[in-house]
């Protein structure tokens, strides 16, 4: 094992080595390592190349905020993931990883030429460079930008993993399993409330995992953690690790993404890779802690430069020293503890370089004890080392004066610019922030949700303070739940309290304009870029951000936002809150598309409704089409037939003898009660009072605007009972509209609505021989034209099944619609097929249904109407009960624009050359007019009619009803067609066939 790993130290399993590869080379790590800690244990700091300048980069953090160490990970075909944070990905056996953004290799990258051309890539580079000439945009600039955009390769294969989702209701959700979160949970769990504690790390504990020397309640931090976590488990608290709260939405709805298998050597079969939890919590405690800030100075991005807290984590949690000769640069007390821990673990501390003059004496004493040199009031002004830091250049600072430099050799440089409270989730709730001038940071202020913020997340520092605050948050949450809990004292020994100051760029004796002092590591934004943006006129932080891309990478500025703001504010000579803070948006950390999609992919992507007769259609080779949520048989091709041939055959067979059609998808609503007829009179345009029981009628439904919304045949089964049918797509909409009127406008009516769409399977039987097919199966009803004329309805028995039988037609032929309880639909269909064999019965699909109805000029709502068509426009004035006092839409039908001339009206069209028009084709009156031409309408329906031997079309045309016989012009892809305006009824205009 490498000399950087300290045997027996940390929370990794020193008895379990795990091998993995990075850029093709095999390394050994330990169970419990992340890729980053394992590489560091092997002395590898160089883990990536930066986005813009391709500068060599090492790991900076030990957590999910990592901006540099982004790697590609692989677990077999389709399981490649780019931009995985090496600080988050746990080692598993055989894990294959690779660095990104380098060519030909990580240690020698030709793209680093950008680094030499640094001065060219200033803020607003894209805006300034890709401007002129305009013609370059499509061919040159956009491909260039697209090629350069993004870090890592997108996967190209379908992701074979499963993703899951789960709903969770809880009294209290605590986000963050550190000291504050655990303290809150300890208090709340005893109140009897349902408590959920989540943490994004593989284990609970937060900073305590990196501070084992701290003692709580007389126990070492780790022993205390074990104890308290067992206690919480025993009290029924749900502890969720590897679970990131990614978004905080309205009414305490919090989304959690749980990573289930990425850390496992061999995931169980069918295990989902990730699960999205939709949590509805009565109360939320945010205990997210704080993120350490880098310091900004020339060369602050070399491999080996990292946050002091991260080095402390690598040491104490993973047993890894990040270097042999470590320099520490800080403006906060916390970095001293990293230095002390490393010194005690055998690393040499080259120096602690503190930007401050006044330093706590206990820290100075402890440094002195360890023989550590502390440089007070110093600045860092440069670093050396190409693939790993070799030295740091430091200068004393006195007032504005930067003194002579000194070079300090080191193989790692730890930095701490202080700590930023993690406000992301609080910010999602649109809670307001207040600027704390003392600590130079934003703190949570006014809350909009039932939440409590505890610990370092609201600017506190030191375990005693944080634990006390956690207890307080727990008590507040319990009180808000109207429960009671006991306060709890959690005394701390060996605490590590601390304070610090914050800076813009550190002062330098060199030209600041040449400093590569990075603020945003992931997007390669420097302090110079930010100042340039301000010089070029950006005043708001939102503009500065977009101009420079500061904080716009996938880490969302977790490390860069506050430093960026401080520098922009300094350049503008304003206070930071006057410049503003950019908005944090979900997700907190990058989240896979799979986790968002959950189960909604493949077969379960979207609900597909199928009728009881669907299996027969499938078995008989039907081609299907989606209609609303349904899949419907479109046509039934025989061997060698294309759609045109199949539809022509189906149409001819139906008109010649008998066709059978699955109409089960039609919406059905039972309207029942003493006031049923009054309700129907008010809803539909037609008069219903004099419709006798046993008869049916075409019904037309308008909106208040007078435009057609839906239609369908409606049967009156008894005085108080109507069987309403709607269009397939309109079923739910019509029921909602009816319920809306009933509940809000006419609550006095004694009538009730029940959806029966799925109660009935419906088969339509059409053709001159339809009666002959049906008659042998019917009991209890005389089907003759005298006794059961067109537009009749009756309850009877068909094929031994209880049925509601309608005589109606949507084809112009003698027609019946037979409704039987849905479970018997297939049985009915098969009985009719059997009975129809003697008459060459032909199953047909929706396409033939469309052709047959178009030959008769029957409209399809939503195809021949578009929400702007009135009954008059559609030629359906006959369906309006003129004598009725009112119905929905009646008043609108007398509006001037509705009764005026020039409305688009539905007509038939026949081309002079016998060619078929395209649906949607525009119509002009004069093809020789100058551009842009005036379009007077469009083709709504167009079919080849096998019955008529030529194509037919329907169209809406301005003043169409007055243009009968006129010629209009229809531009088609291959030329302009002349078409004559006709009636919409192309076949059997007298309707003789209906009465057969």
């Amino acid at each position, binding site marked *: 094992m490498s000399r950087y790993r300290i045997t027996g130290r940390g929370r990794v399993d020193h008895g379990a080595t795990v091998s993995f590869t990075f850029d093709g080379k095999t390394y050994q790590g330990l169970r419990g390592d992340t890729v980053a800690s394992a590489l560091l244990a092997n002395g590898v700091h160089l883990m990536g190349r930066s986005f813009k300048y391709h500068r060599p980069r090492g790991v900076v953090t030990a957590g999910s905020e990592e901006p540099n160490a982004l790697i590609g990970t692989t677990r077999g075909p389709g399981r490649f993931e780019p931009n995985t944070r090496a600080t988050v990905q746990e080692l598993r056996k055989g894990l294959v990883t690779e660095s990104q953004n380098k060519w030909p290799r990580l240690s020698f990258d030709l793209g680093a030429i950008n680094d030499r051309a640094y001065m060219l890539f200033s803020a607003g580079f894209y805006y300034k460079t890709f401007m002129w000439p305009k013609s370059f945009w499509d061919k040159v600039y956009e491909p260039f930008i697209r090629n350069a955009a993004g870090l890592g390769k997108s996967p190209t294969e379908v992701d074979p993993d499963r993703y899951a989702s789960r*709903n969770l*209701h809880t009294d209290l959700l605590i986000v963050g399993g550190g000291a504050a979160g655990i303290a809150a949970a300890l208090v709340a769990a005893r109140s009897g409330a349902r408590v959920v504690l989540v943490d994004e790390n593989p284990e609970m504990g937060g900073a305590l995992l990196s501070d084992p020397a701290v003692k709580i309640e007389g126990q070492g931090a780790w022993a205390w953690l074990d104890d308290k976590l067992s206690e919480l488990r025993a009290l029924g608290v749900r502890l969720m690790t590897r679970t990131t709260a990614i978004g905080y939405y309205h009414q305490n709805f919090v989304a959690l993404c749980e990573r289930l*298998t990425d850390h496992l050597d061999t995931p169980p*079969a069918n295990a989902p890779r990730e699960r999205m939890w939709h949590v509805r919590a009565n109360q939320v405690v945010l205990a997210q802690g704080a993120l350490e800030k880098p310091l900004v100075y020339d060369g602050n991005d070399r491999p080996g430069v990292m946050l002091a807290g991260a080095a402390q984590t690598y040491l104490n949690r993973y047993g890894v020293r990040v270097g042999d000769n470590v320099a520490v640069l800080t403006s906060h007390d916390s970095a001293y503890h990293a230095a002390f821990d490393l010194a005690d673990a055998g690393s040499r501390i080259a120096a602690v370089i503190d930007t401050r003059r006044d330093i706590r004496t206990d820290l100075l004493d402890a440094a002195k004890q360890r023989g550590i040199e502390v440089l007070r009031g110093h600045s860092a002004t440069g670093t050396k080392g190409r693939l790993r830091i070799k030295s740091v250049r430091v200068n004393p600072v006195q007032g504005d004066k930067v003194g002579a430099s000194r070079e300090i050799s080191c193989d790692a440089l730890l930095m701490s610019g202080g700590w930023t409270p993690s406000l992301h989730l609080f910010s999602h709730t649109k809670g307001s922030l207040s600027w704390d001038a003392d600590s130079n940071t934003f703190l949570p202020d006014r809350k909009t949700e039932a939440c409590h913020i505890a610990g370092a997340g609201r600017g506190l520092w030191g375990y005693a303070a944080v634990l006390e605050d956690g207890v307080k948050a727990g008590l507040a949450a319990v009180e808000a739940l109207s429960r009671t809990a006991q306060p709890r004292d959690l005394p701390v020994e060996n605490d590590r309290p601390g304070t610090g100051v914050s800076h813009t760029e550190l002062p330098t004796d060199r030209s600041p304009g040449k400093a590569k002092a990075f603020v945003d590591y992931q997007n390669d934004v420097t302090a110079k870029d930010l100042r340039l943006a301000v010089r070029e006129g950006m005043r708001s932080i939102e503009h500065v951000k977009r101009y420079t891309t500061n904080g716009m990478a996938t880490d969302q500025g977790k490390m860069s936002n506050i430093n960026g703001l401080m520098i922009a504010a300094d350049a503008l000579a304003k206070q930071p809150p006057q410049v503003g803070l950019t908005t944090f948006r979900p997700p907190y950390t990058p989240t896979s598309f799979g986790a968002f999609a959950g189960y909604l992919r493949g077969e379960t992507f*979207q*609900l597909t409704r199928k009728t009881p007769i669907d299996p027969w259609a499938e078995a008989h080779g039907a081609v299907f089409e989606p209609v609303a949520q349904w899949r419907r048989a479109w046509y039934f091709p025989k061997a060698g037939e294309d759609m045109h041939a199949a539809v022509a055959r189906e149409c001819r067979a139906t008109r010649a003898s008998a066709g059978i059609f699955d109409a089960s998808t039609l919406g059905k609503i039972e309207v029942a009660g003493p006031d049923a007829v009054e309700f129907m009179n008010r809803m539909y345009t037609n008069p219903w009072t004099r419709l006798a029981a046993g008869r049916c009628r075409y019904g037309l439904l308008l909106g208040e605007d007078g435009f057609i919304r839906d239609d369908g045949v409606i049967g009156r089964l008894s005085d108080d009972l109507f069987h309403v049918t709607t269009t397939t797509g309109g079923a739910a909409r019509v029921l909602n509209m009816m319920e809306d009127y009933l509940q809000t406008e006419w609550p006095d009516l004694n009538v009730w609505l029940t959806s029966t769409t799925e*109660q009935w399977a419906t088969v339509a039987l059409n053709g001159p021989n339809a009666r002959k097919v049906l008659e042998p199966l019917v009991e209890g009803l005389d089907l003759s034209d005298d006794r059961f004329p067109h537009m009749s309805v009756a309850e009877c028995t068909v094929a031994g099944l209880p049925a509601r039988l309608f005589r109606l037609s949507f084809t112009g032929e003698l027609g019946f619609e037979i409704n039987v309880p849905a479970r018997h639909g297939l049985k009915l269909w098969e009985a009719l097929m059997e009975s129809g064999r003697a008459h060459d019965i032909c199953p047909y699909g929706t396409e033939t249904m469309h052709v047959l109805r178009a030959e008769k000029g029957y409209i399809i709502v939503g195809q021949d109407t578009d929400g702007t068509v009135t009954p008059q426009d559609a030629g359906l004035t006959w369906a309006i009960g003129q004598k009725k006092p009112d119905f929905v839409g009646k008043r609108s039908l007398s509006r001037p624009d509705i009764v005026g001339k020039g409305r688009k009206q539905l007509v038939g069209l026949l081309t002079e050359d016998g060619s078929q028009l395209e649906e949607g084709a525009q119509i002009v009156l004069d093809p020789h007019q100058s551009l842009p031409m005036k379009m007077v309408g469009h083709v709504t329906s167009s079919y080849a009619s096998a019955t008529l031997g030529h194509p037919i079309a329907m169209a809406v045309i301005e003043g169409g009803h007055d243009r009968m016989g006129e010629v209009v012009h229809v531009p088609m892809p291959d030329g302009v067609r002349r078409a004559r305006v006709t009636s919409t009824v192309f076949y059997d205009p007298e309707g003789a066939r209906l009465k057969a």
Partner: protein
Amino acid sequence: MNTQKHDFTAAPVQIEELAPAARFSLRVRPDGRAALAQALGLDLPGGIGDRTADGGREALCLGPDEWLILAPEAAPLAKAAASVYADAPHSLTEISDREITLRLSGPQVLDLLASCCPRDVEAMPEGRGCRTVYDSATVTLWRDGPTEFRMDVWRSFLPHVLGLMALTKAELQAGL
């Protein structure tokens, strides 16, 4: 009762399709409630989500004027209701075939339901019912025991619901 078992194994959840029974949607105003209850021989509970059962018949209150009625047979129920129609106008619509009923049970049935139902099913007391959704399908959920549920699913939505349940079941069997 069971006609079609989708699963015979004990753990972690069982999903069974129940044989059809007579099912009605009853709508009646408050002043007609007692008359209907008497005619049907079944107390009509007043609180939404409350249930009653008597002689093989069950009632679940789904709204201030709405009950779901289950019975072994349809005809006697319809006849009984019709006899009081003049005095207590109502709508009793047979919907026996509209939905198919699943029985869901097993130690992890709450997880199965939580995968696609946003409601706090865990907190739902035994012996109650509710109208809710399972993914995008409207369903009626009956809690019959700590880990015993019935779910009425509109017929055409059933394949989608069962497809999702199969995914969740595999996930529960994986143990993660």
